[in-house]
């Protein structure tokens, strides 16, 4: 029985039925179909919630091996497991919106996340410094456009050279926006054709199958 559910044809059949249950109610609003579609979404959300257990188990197993075999950096895996246990226990004991869990979230996790986000600026600067060189007329044009938009974003430049606002807005609202829309259109079309390949069983990597797997 389990081999039947693991088979490629059974999984594609489930995929087609699920697709129809979500696709059709968007175009034809009919009560029972809407209800079924809603139920399907709930099932997907519940299944997703269960997979967290497998992910956490995988992390525990990997860290356990690091510690057992004293691999490089094994001490950090002790910290990791201890912190996972503390966060989980404090969440269960005090709840999500009080006590240790909330403190850990607001005083540790959020500031650390902000630091990682803040570091982005340095990575962007180093990549920009490497890439923005006027090696050709096209790259020179790109460099000038980038410089105008960058200067407009700095408050001081706006105060001293108010004329830069018009140029920067023109660049972002015409060229920037048209490129963004072109990107959206081409990606949407690509995604729909990808969907057709999935439904016809040609694209099966997302089901965990490789080429030739049945």
């Amino acid at each position, binding site marked *: 029985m389990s081999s039947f559910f693991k088979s490629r044809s059974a999984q594609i059949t489930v995929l087609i039925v699920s697709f129809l249950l979500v696709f059709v109610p968007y*175009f034809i609003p009919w009560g029972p179909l809407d209800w079924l579609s809603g139920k399907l979404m709930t099932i997907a959300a519940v*299944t*997703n919630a269960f*997979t967290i257990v497998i992910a956490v188990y995988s992390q525990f197993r990997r860290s356990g091996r690091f510690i057992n075999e004293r691999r490089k950096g094994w001490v950090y895996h002790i910290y990791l497991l201890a912190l996972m246990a503390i966060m989980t226990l404090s969440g269960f004991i005090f709840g999500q919106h009080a006590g240790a869990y909330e403190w850990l979230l607001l005083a540790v*996790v959020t500031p650390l996340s902000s630091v*990682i986000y803040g570091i982005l600026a340095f990575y962007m600067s180093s990549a920009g410094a490497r890439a*923005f060189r006027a090696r050709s007329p096209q790259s020179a044009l790109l460099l000038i456009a980038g410089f105008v938009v960058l200067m407009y974003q700095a408050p001081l430049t706006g105060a001293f050279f108010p004329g830069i606002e018009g140029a920067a807005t023109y660049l972002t609202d015409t060229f920037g926006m048209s490129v963004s829309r072109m990107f959206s259109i081409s990606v949407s079309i690509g995604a729909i054709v990808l969907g057709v390949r999935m439904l016809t069983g*040609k694209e099966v990597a997302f089901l965990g*199958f490789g080429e030739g797997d049945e």
Partner: protein
Amino acid sequence: MTNALFTLPGFAEGRLIGLLLLILIFVLAINFMGSAKVPYIRRVPALDAIEDAVGRSTEMGKPVVCSYGCGGFDYWTIAGLSILGYVAKICAETDTRLIVPTGGSASSYIVREAAVDLVRNAYTAAGRPEAFNEDDMPFLSGEQYAYTPGYVGILVRERPGTMVMTGSHWSEAMNLAEMANAVGAVTITAGCYTSNMAALACASDYIMLGEEQPAAGAYLSRDPAQMASIRVQDIYKFIAIGTILVGLIAVNLGSDIINRLLAT
């Protein structure tokens, strides 16, 4: 907000045109796939470079890092998984270590299971199931900014020869691509939104643009039927350009008929 041009009883307002366009895509794609006549498809340097980059890692004795994104099962992730399957196949055949950092968002847990199966199947298909090591597919975190330093740590410790970063990577993409570059890895990436793409283009050796990523699975499979489906994308791009031009002319003549036809 533009009012729909017409409504039909039993149909959601103004969505009929969208439905007809979708049905036409389905019909065209299935028709092209059935004909199995390989159309001309322009080369995608980022996809062509994967095999060479993995080969470089093999020669240098360094691992390959490949990630399929932080998101749930959206089309970026599905495209990313197709590319992961291809990379896993080459790594399994050439005995190159493959590291796949997983996680990154609350919706990423479920994708991980499919990715593990995919890589395991690739090793089995290559006749080396014993070489598959699930520890090389670590779940880093369900939080984006905990996943990022975990991923950066892997890049710094393992010093891969190649990094293939596809799927939906958001602001962390820049940290990862730039760090891969710093450790000397060939960096192949795919941007999933415009501002990200501009930054990634600076940091990467090769980048996939726009629809190149959703088309990657078909392109890499070399299967005539799948490659034929890519042709539909080109046809629809011309339809989109035509609709934009007609809409532009109509608006300038004082008519909003195209806007109303496409309004939902």
